[in-house]
Structures are given as C-alpha cells and as structure tokens.
C-alpha cells in the first residue's frame, strides 16, 4: 500500500487537525454524489477507499496501534443505480443494461419501444447522459418531468444539471459564478446589497 500520508497529501509531521481537514477535503472531492451516473464512478469509489484506508491507518498508528479507528466517514453510493420502480419488464431490462454499463444495448432497447411515456424519456435521458450528450439528456429529463411532475427521480435528474453539486476548489471565491446568487438571499447578502446601493446613491 502507498504511504498513507502521501495519499492524503499531508506531511507525516502534520497535526491531527490538519490530517482531518485534508481528509474531509478529499472526501468532499471524491464523494459519490459528484460521480453519480458518471462512467468513472468506479474509479472515484476506488479513490475513496484508498483515502478511507489511509485515514484509518494514520489514526490507528497515532492512537497507539489499538484496534480499528472507526472515524472514517462511510460515504456509500447514495441513490446510485437504476433499481427504481419500473412500469414494465421492458423498462426493467433497460435499467439493468444501464446499471451494467451497456449503454448501446439500453439505447437500442429504448429506440424500438413505442410506448414513450415519462419513464421512457427519463431512461433515454440517462442513456444520453452517460454518453455525454448533455443537451439531449436535459431535454429528455425535462420532458419526463413535464409528463410526470410528481416523480422525485425525474426531478432530481433535472436539478442535478442546475446545481451541479460537484466539488469546486474555488467555491465561494466567485459569488457571480454560483448558479444562483439571488435565490437564497441571506440577511448578510441583503445587508451587503443595501451597503452597495448606499454607495451608489452617494455618487449621484
């Protein structure tokens, strides 16, 4: 196994606090949510495993070699896979093909279907998403939501596009960059807006 300190990117003399910080940052980076439906999710899982092992090893060493240190966050894949409720046996086959990573087969199965309901659009969107055809994926997801607005699975697929949710080392540095800076105004934002407005009025 690699040196656990180099896996976490810290020096062996780092304090416990520094190690925890580095560990949390890495967990945030490789969290399964960032790689949901991503063809590379297995690689991210692998990274996550290495990081957890490295953290456990360091903590065990530091606590005097005692039993396993149960401090590592278990970030299991949340909501991954397409095991959702499916209307028919045909859709179940498509879901199985997507889960197995056989995207061409899933696409083929969907193309010959005549019953193009919300679930069909959702699954077609998922196939397109895996292929990297994001424009079509978004259109299909949006159609699915408009046909069945109550379905949380479809709504989540659309919102994944809008908020991204992925790790960004520059997060916060550019308020103008976040997807929505006006949707969730806090008291603090309102204050700073008022201060800005005040400055502007001074100019006139």
């Amino acid at each position, binding site marked *: 196994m690699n040196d656990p300190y180099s896996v976490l990117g810290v020096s062996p003399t780092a304090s416990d606090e520094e190690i925890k910080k580095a560990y949390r940052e890495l967990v945030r*980076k*490789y969290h399964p949510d*960032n*790689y949901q439906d*991503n*063809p*590379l999710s297995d*690689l*991210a899982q692998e*990274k996550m495993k290495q990081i957890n092992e490295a953290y456990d090893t360091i903590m065990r060493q530091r606590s005097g070699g005692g039993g396993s240190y149960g401090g590592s966050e278990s970030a299991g894949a949340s909501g991954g896979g397409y095991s959702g409720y499916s209307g028919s046996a045909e859709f179940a086959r498509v879901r199985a093909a997507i889960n197995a990573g056989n995207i061409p087969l899933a696409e083929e199965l969907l193309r010959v279907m005549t019953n193009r309901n919300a679930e069909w659009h959702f699954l077609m969107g998922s196939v*397109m998403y895996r*292929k*990297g*055809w*994001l*424009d*079509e*994926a*978004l259109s299909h997801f949006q159609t699915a939501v408009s046909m069945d607005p109550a379905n949380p699975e479809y709504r989540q697929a659309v919102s994944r*596009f*809008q908020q*991204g949710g*992925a*790790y*960004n*080392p*520059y997060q916060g*540095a*550019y308020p103008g*960059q976040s*997807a929505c800076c006006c949707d969730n105004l806090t008291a603090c934002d309102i204050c700073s807006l008022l201060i800005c407005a005040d400055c502007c009025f001074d100019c006139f």
Partner: protein
Amino acid sequence: MFGYIRPMRGELKVREYEQYKACYCGLCRALKEQGTPLASFILSYDFVFLAMLLYDAQEAPATAHVRCGASLFRRRKACLKFPALSLCADYCIILTWWKLHDTLADEGFFRSLRDRLFMAVLARAYRKAAARRPGYAARVREALEALERLEREERPSLDACADQFARLTAALAEGAGETRRRPLEQLLYHVGRFIYIVDAADDLPEDYKARRRNAVAERFGLSGVLTDKARESLETTLLHSCRLAAAAFELLDSGPFTPVLQNILYLGMPQTCRAVLSGTWRRDEKRKSKEFELDE
C-alpha cells in the same frame, strides 16, 4: 485556432503564469521545429492546455531561455520539447489544415484565396505531421467529413455534431497509460464538446449573415441571435460539461501543472462560456488574445 480553453489570468499565481507562458512558447517552438512557418498564427491556447494535460511526468519539464521573432531583444523562458508537446503540435497542424480544407467550399473568392495560400504554406508541415501520425490524420478527415454530412441533414442533433468533434479530442488519450486513459478520455471528450458548441454559439451572427449552417441555430431554430431560452439551456449543459471534465480531472494523479489545469477547468472554461453566451467574448478577444504573448 479556437482559443476557448484558457486560464482565468487574475487567479493564476505568478509561478503558474510563468509555467503557462513557458508551455506556450514551447509549443510555438515545437511547431516551428516541426516545419510550420508562421507558427504563431496557428498556435492557440487550446493546444497549450492539451499539452499541459498530456504531460505525465512528476517533475516539471526542463526550460531554456530562448530568443524568437516575437521577442527579439529579450530571451524568454520556453519549455524544451516533451512528447506531449510534439503530439499537440502535430495535432494542431493536422486539425488546422483540415479545417481550412473544409471551409474552402463555404467561402467567398477572397477569403478562399487567403485560405488556399495559407494551406499551401502549411502543406509541407502537414505532410510531415500526417506521416508521423497516420492514424490521427485519417481520423480527423473522417470525423470532419461525417460532421459535414451531419450538418447538412435536416435539423441535425447538436450533440451528435459535437460528438464527432469530441471523439477527436478524446482520441488524444490513446497514448496514455492504463490508469490515466479512462479519466483522460472523458475529460477530453467534454473539452471537445465544449469547444464545438461554444464555437458554434460564437459564430452564430456571422454564420447567419453568410447563410452558413450552424448547429446551435438549427438546434434552437435561431436567426443569428441567442434567445434567453437557448442561452439558458446552453449554459446549463456547457457548465455541466465543465463539471464532468473537472470531475474526471480529479481522478488523475497530480503533476506539476495541476494548479494551472484546475484554474482552466474550474474558472477559465466557465468564464469563456458565459462571455460567449452573453456576447461579450468577441469584444474582448483582441485584447485577450495577446495577453500571454506580450507582457513580461
């Protein structure tokens, strides 16, 4: 040639900025060494990004202080040739040549004359590059032909067009080692997709004036101007491409260029996307296109 993949300069550290400039000069030198006259004309930021991305050693590449036509009195720091640099130089030559070849048919007399001259100047470098990378040259030709066929179809799919181009960039990952290949392929695919769609959105008014087909115009039924709905939809999917590219990038081991590449993926590309979609890109382009060349 495109120049859409570039860092957000204000966020680079001085050391990163110097690394970037050294790679830029290194690529320019590689182009010249590989027989391209007027190398600085076909050089673009996109290929500098590709070269930095495909560099896979742990130590920074060696540099030297060199003199060149663009800086006669002061020697500049340039990266010495490394394998990814010559690969990107060849790629740049091959792609430029075929792009010129493809646009000839759509152009008026004077523009086509200019492009023909340029092609004649490039011909020798192209032959050499194509001989060095025969598979790649054939692939570029096939992809661009397929793209042309697709673009002639009634209402072609924007993603299908972008896919042809994206596969070309993704093919650059072929030479990479086993562990690097998959993340690199996905990263390069989304970068290629980004370039194709941003380029189409950027060309929208010009293409409309010249009555050329434009994949973005066809997708949203536009006449030369982006509507709010089209802009919103494009921004959503393009920024998502940036995110997927960045997520793939994080799976690669870090190297000497990691901070610069992170800047490009997390800041530079989203910035470009917003500028092109809001129509401020062209206005700033003249100033920007010189920013890494002139100042010391």
